């Protein structure tokens, strides 16, 4: 078991023939992900990386039965790519693109919700179920199979956490980077709930960061809904107010969204918080 993705997902790549799309699609294929084709407008009919290219998602779905998409389309067109995927009946879209205007993303998410398409991202590393399916830009080989569900706003912190988890002999059921933008698709709550229901997942590692309110909401949700042990970390305790820390969403305005506030809320919800990302493995060992 795992959550959201496994070897059965039939995946297409939107922005397939672009530089980024090509590079990462190749990596995903090498990992064993079931990439069935790609979409690039006006390039339909070609073959790329040994897979068929289609003009539209709708055609790709008709021809290949695809149910999942990974989006590398540039920011100005990415929201439209999400609309197209939702319109074509795709059920999960992983959006790698960084820099989508929030107004566009609000609209795309509204429509995706209406069409029951889940979104991971945007501006995220993607999702991986080790040894089965990688839909993203993360290095596959640092994710070892195991029983820890990993969810994070940050890409490299996901890798760091996964590295620590495997360095102490544990592994990952599924790892998801939900992205650090102000408007994102799946949030902590939905993913936590899936991990809670997933038999394979025994422990959850949650990595948040400053900005926004998602961790506070997660804390509320955890209190009454999550029974599995959670290890938590919030990045950005030393970040100054009013400055964007790389991610568009990682900004403290007023006193809201600070690491301190989030850490406190999660601790009160029973999450085992660590002060340093280097202590995730220690905490994991303590819990077992």
């Amino acid at each position, binding site marked *: 078991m795992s959550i959201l993705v496994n070897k059965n997902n039939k995946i297409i790549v939107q922005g397939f023939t672009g530089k980024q799309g090509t590079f*990462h699609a190749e990596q995903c294929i090498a990992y064993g992900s079931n990439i069935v084709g790609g979409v690039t407008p006006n390039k339909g009919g070609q073959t790329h990386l040994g897979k068929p290219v289609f003009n539209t998602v709708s055609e790709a779905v008709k021809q290949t039965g695809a149910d999942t998409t990974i989006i590398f389309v540039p920011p100005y067109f990415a929201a439209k790519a999400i609309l197209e995927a939702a319109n074509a009946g795709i059920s999960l879209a992983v959006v790698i693109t960084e820099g*989508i205007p929030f107004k566009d993303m609000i*609209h795309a998410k509204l429509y995706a919700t209406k069409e029951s398409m889940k979104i991971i991202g945007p501006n995220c590393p993607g999702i991986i179920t080790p040894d089965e399916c990688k839909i993203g830009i993360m290095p596959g080989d640092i994710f070892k199979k195991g029983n820890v569900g990993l969810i994070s706003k940050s890409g490299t912190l996901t890798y760091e956490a996964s*590295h620590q988890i495997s360095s102490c002999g544990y592994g990952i059921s599924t790892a998801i980077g939900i992205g650090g933008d102000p408007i994102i698709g799946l949030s902590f709550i939905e993913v936590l709930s899936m991990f809670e229901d997933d038999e394979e997942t025994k422990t959850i590692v949650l990595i948040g960061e400053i900005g926004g309110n998602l961790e506070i909401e997660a804390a509320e949700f955890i209190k009454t809904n999550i029974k599995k042990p959670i290890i938590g970390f919030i990045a950005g305790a030393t970040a100054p107010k009013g400055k964007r*820390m790389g991610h568009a969403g990682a900004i403290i305005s007023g006193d809201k969204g600070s690491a301190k506030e989030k850490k406190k809320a999660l601790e009160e919800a029973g999450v085992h918080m660590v002060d340093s990302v280097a202590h995730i493995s220690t905490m994991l060992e303590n819990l077992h």
Partner: protein
Amino acid sequence: MNIHEYQAKKLFSDYEIPILKGEVVFSSDGAYEYAKSLKGDIFAVKAQIHAGGRGLGGGVKIAKNLKEVREFSDEILGMQLITPQTDEHGQEVKKIYIEEGADISHQYYLSIVLDRGLEKPVIIASLDGGVNIEDVALSSPERIITTEIDSLIGLQSFHIANICSGLALCKEDSKVFGAFIEKLYKFYIENDVELVEINPLIKTTDNHFIALDAKVSFDENALYRHPKIEELRDIEEEEEIELEANSHGLKYVELDGNIGCMVNGAGLAMAVMDMIKHEGGSPANFLDIGGGASVETVTKAFEIMQTNRKIKVIFINIFGGIVRCDLVANGILGAMNEIKLDIPLVVRLEGTNAKQGLEILENSGYQNIVAISDLEKATKKSIELSK
């Protein structure tokens, strides 16, 4: 992206949002001349910097005659204005806004801002303007009316009716204030605004509603659709060095400490800063070099960090994923060849080909490079070298 009050008011007037007559000037002579052209016998002299709370730092003065206009302008122009939103050094004032006076009968507050949790814009209106809205939210939340606008329906007349009724406006005022909100919402939506805040929004004794202040910031990601707004960017207001970093695809924020950090990934970069602090050190910056670690990128990062004289050691933390650590190591050495670094370098490499990368660094012959694979040990080493 933030803009100045005078720029925001210019945009407001394009949307027929009422403002007072005013103009930006760059000298006290200019201030005097412009004030002379205004009717009335009272004038506002307002420092134009992006940070809020200008009044508290002495950046906004009311002149009762032309002589005072000149005096206050002289005072404010060139000052290092310190406000609750600047750092302790303040921000140099290079331009001021001269504005006519008004007879105020009441001060309201009005803003439209993206609520990330709701994923909708919200209109926030308050009976109390001219004060800190967060204080009002704490002391008398019932005086603040918050209205969510679902993008499926946009601003509707019932939203406006609810706001006006919440503010207990009379029928005539509701009409005028309603029209004000409509125009402001149009401005918000059409320009990918992230925040527009009017504090205070005044009602004059002759029953006009006027934006007395104006704070606007735009969605950086959407500026490509608004080239004219992009032109309003005031690079003097943004940290020069941060802009320079940005233009090379690096994300950089300067801090107070003495350990320069160079990390791939925003989350990891924050986590490294936190870890340094947690272990008793002090980070000099946030620096995310993103996905690549080429000779050019690393060289640029070194150059940027060299501008900060406080830095005693540079801590490089790269988690090799798609980027292989051996290539990163070569990138670092290439940059070392370009730039003479006379401070120590602690390099922690982990992930793909980490071992090879560390070996390359160890065998490089550079005495000031310490290569370590353990994150915590590397952090402690950096702190040790920074003391």
